[in-house]
């Protein structure tokens, strides 16, 4: 369960937006909207603990995070990257389920190709495999639609929908509105109001 109480994120001692209040139960989905520079990325990073300056409180379960940097090692291929990631989380790595997940995102032919040889869009598809395989309850995604074609966009929406139906939690900062059945929206406006 995600809960924000009077949360204001600070950067260099300056408040980025008005205090936020929000609650999200299991199965819920939030899209975080706002113009560039309004603090969406910083808010997400605060929720997972990478950013330390804030006022107010928040409760956030253990999440899977994908930020602007994908977190894929260019020198390794997708299978090796997934093996490392799952080892990190403490889950066991099963090559079959990895390949199945790769097939879901249409990247199974590239399973043994080093990531340095892929385009940005292809790398983003590979990173989506981690969403599927991660054992964490919540996803925190920063601009997941970047550099994806129409199929990719549809895929992202499908995955988020499935995660919510399975009882997970998704928080998503995005410029493109999410196409899911039930969602809340938080609009961050730089230095002025923000409504839920």
């Amino acid at each position: 369960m995600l809960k924000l109480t009077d949360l204001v994120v600070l950067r260099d001692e300056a408040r980025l937006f008005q205090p936020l209040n929000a609650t999200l139960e299991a199965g819920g989905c939030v899209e975080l909207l706002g113009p560039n520079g309004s603090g969406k990325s910083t808010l997400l990073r605060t929720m997972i603990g990478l950013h330390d300056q804030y006022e107010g409180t928040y409760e956030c379960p253990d999440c899977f995070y994908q930020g602007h940097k994908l977190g894929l090692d260019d020198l390794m291929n997708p299978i090796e990257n997934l093996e490392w990631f799952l080892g990190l989380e403490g889950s066991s790595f099963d090559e079959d389920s990895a390949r199945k997940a790769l097939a879901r995102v249409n990247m199974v032919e590239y399973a043994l190709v080093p990531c340095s040889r892929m385009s940005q869009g292809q790398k983003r598809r590979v990173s989506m495999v981690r969403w599927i395989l991660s054992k964490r309850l919540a996803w925190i995604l920063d601009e997941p639609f970047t550099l994806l074609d129409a199929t990719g966009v549809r895929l992202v929406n499908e995955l988020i929908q499935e995660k919510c139906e399975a009882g997970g939690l998704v928080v998503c900062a995005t410029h493109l509105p999410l196409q899911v059945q039930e969602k809340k929206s938080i609009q961050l406006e730089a230095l002025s109001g923000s409504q839920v």
Partner: protein
Amino acid sequence: MGSVWVREWRAVVRNRSAIINPVAFVFLGVLLFNLGSRSYEESFDGSALGMLWVLVLIANLLALDSTFRRDFESGLLEQIFVSAEVPFLILFLKVLMQWMTTGFLISLLSPLLALLMGVPYELLGNTFVALLIGTPTLSFLGAIGASLTVGMGRGGALLALLVLPLYIPVLIFGVDVSQSQSIALTEISSLYWLFFISLASLTLAPFAILLGLKISLAMD
């Protein structure tokens, strides 16, 4: 943990320049030293050992930035902090791997390097031991500096300024051990100091590295 070590190993093996550069640098330095010192006398005055140690220090310094930089820029470091159960252990392994590709390799090659610098045979053994025990400290203390500067672009000079003062005790004790004439290693007091510093930095530095990386990640 196995998969973490495997990944570090792969990162090193597929990125050959990371290994070759520090070792090549030391050889180059030895060459420069020989060309630059004007006297071709056979007498060994001890400064050659000091120069070798300084070269090792600088080679380590040059290799420090890469400890975390690739992972920082690709986003792997964020993943370590968010998803890993024990980030501490992963960072420890990472720095250990950095040592294996710099200090450890240089220590293995040190008898050859020392010979090329004109060091007499009797001191080669001590030099090897001193380097083997002293270089982990260099990697671990240096990683503290690297953890702070990784978020700052290529802060090369800042890294040197932060790290070299911490290297000085290692240099002093290391040269002392290398130069000791006594064959029985257990009689050299500086060796115990070197050992103590090594153990202390191995156990305490990872905490500072963790804090430094958190600062760098927050700067992003």
